[in-house]
C-alpha cells in the first residue's frame, strides 16, 4: 500500500517525508510498547503507535520501519522529528484512535505480520473473515 493511500484512508497530516508518499509499505503493525514492535514487526512496515518520544523513531530505524503513523491526535516531540528527517523515515499523524486506524488499513488490504508469515492472500483472508 502506498503511503499516500495511508494518508487518505486515515486522513493523516504529514509531519515529515512529503517527498516519499509514493513509496509502498508491505505490512502494518500497531503497538505502543517498543519491545513488542521489535519482537513482531516485519521489514518495510508501517508502524502505528501512540508513543511520541524519540524512541519511537529509534525503534523504527532499528527495525527498518518505513513510516510511522501517530494515532489519537498525538504529535511526536522535536527530537523524534529531527531523527526521522535524518534517517528518511516518514512521519504522519491522525486524530483517529489505534483500533480504528488499524481496522481501516486492514480493511483496505494492508496485511498484518502473521498474515505475511503464513503467506495468506487477501482472498483467503476474506474467506476466513466471512466464517466468523
Amino acid at each position, binding site marked *: 500500500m502506498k503511503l499516500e493511500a495511508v494518508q487518505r484512508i486515515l486522513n493523516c497530516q504529514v509531519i515529515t517525508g512529503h517527498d516519499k508518499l509514493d513509496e509502498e509499505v508491505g505490512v502494518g503493525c500497531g503497538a505502543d510498547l*517498543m*519491545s513488542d514492535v*521489535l519482537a513482531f514487526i516485519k521489514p518495510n512496515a508501517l508502524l502505528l503507535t501512540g508513543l511520541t518520544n524519540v*524512541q519511537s523513531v*529509534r*525503534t523504527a*530505524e532499528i*527495525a527498518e520501519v518505513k513510516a510511522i503513523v501517530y494515532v489519537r491526535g498525538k504529535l511526536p516531540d522535536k527530537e523524534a522529528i529531527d531523527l526521522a528527517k535524518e534517517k528518511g523515515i516518514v512521519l504522519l499523524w491522525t486524530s483517529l484512535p489505534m483500533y480504528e486506524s488499524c481496522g481501516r488499513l486492514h480493511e483496505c488490504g494492508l496485511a498484518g505480520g502473521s498474515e505475511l508469515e503464513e503467506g495468506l492472500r487477501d482472498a483467503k483472508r476474506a474467506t476466513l473473515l466471512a466464517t466468523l
Partner: protein
Amino acid sequence: MPSEPLFWQRFDICGRDFVDAGKASISIKGILREIGIHPSLIRRAAIASYEAEMNVVLYARKGTMELRVTPKDIRVMVDDEGPGISDIELAMREGYSTASDEIREMGFGAGMGLSNIKKNADDFIIRSLVGKGTTLEITFRL
C-alpha cells in the same frame, strides 16, 4: 582458537539516559552496513543490540557494549553494573517484566527483551550476579 577481529569497537552506555538510549545500536547498524553484512543479518543484530542496550539504560547504572566482527561471526558483548537478575529463566519468559510505570511510559518493559535477543541470535549467553550486574554474549554466525 578465536579468530582475530576484523573490527572492534566499544560503546559506553549510561543508565537512565533516555536522550541517547539506542544510539550505540544505531552506530552498530551503520558499521555492519559499511562492512557489507547481509541486510537480514544486520536487522537481527541491530534488534538484539538495541534490546540489550535498552536493558542497560532502563535497569542498570552504567554499562558497556562491545562489537566484534571476525571472519566467522559478529559478536555483541554487553556488561553492566546493575541490580542483576535473580531468576534468569523467569526473566527470559515472554511477557515477564519488572518494569516500572516510568519505563512503560517510555515505551519499554513489555517483557519481550531477553527472549527477543535470543530469538534473533545464533547463540546467546547470559550471566548475572544479583547486586553486581549482568553480562550478555550475543553471537551471529556469518
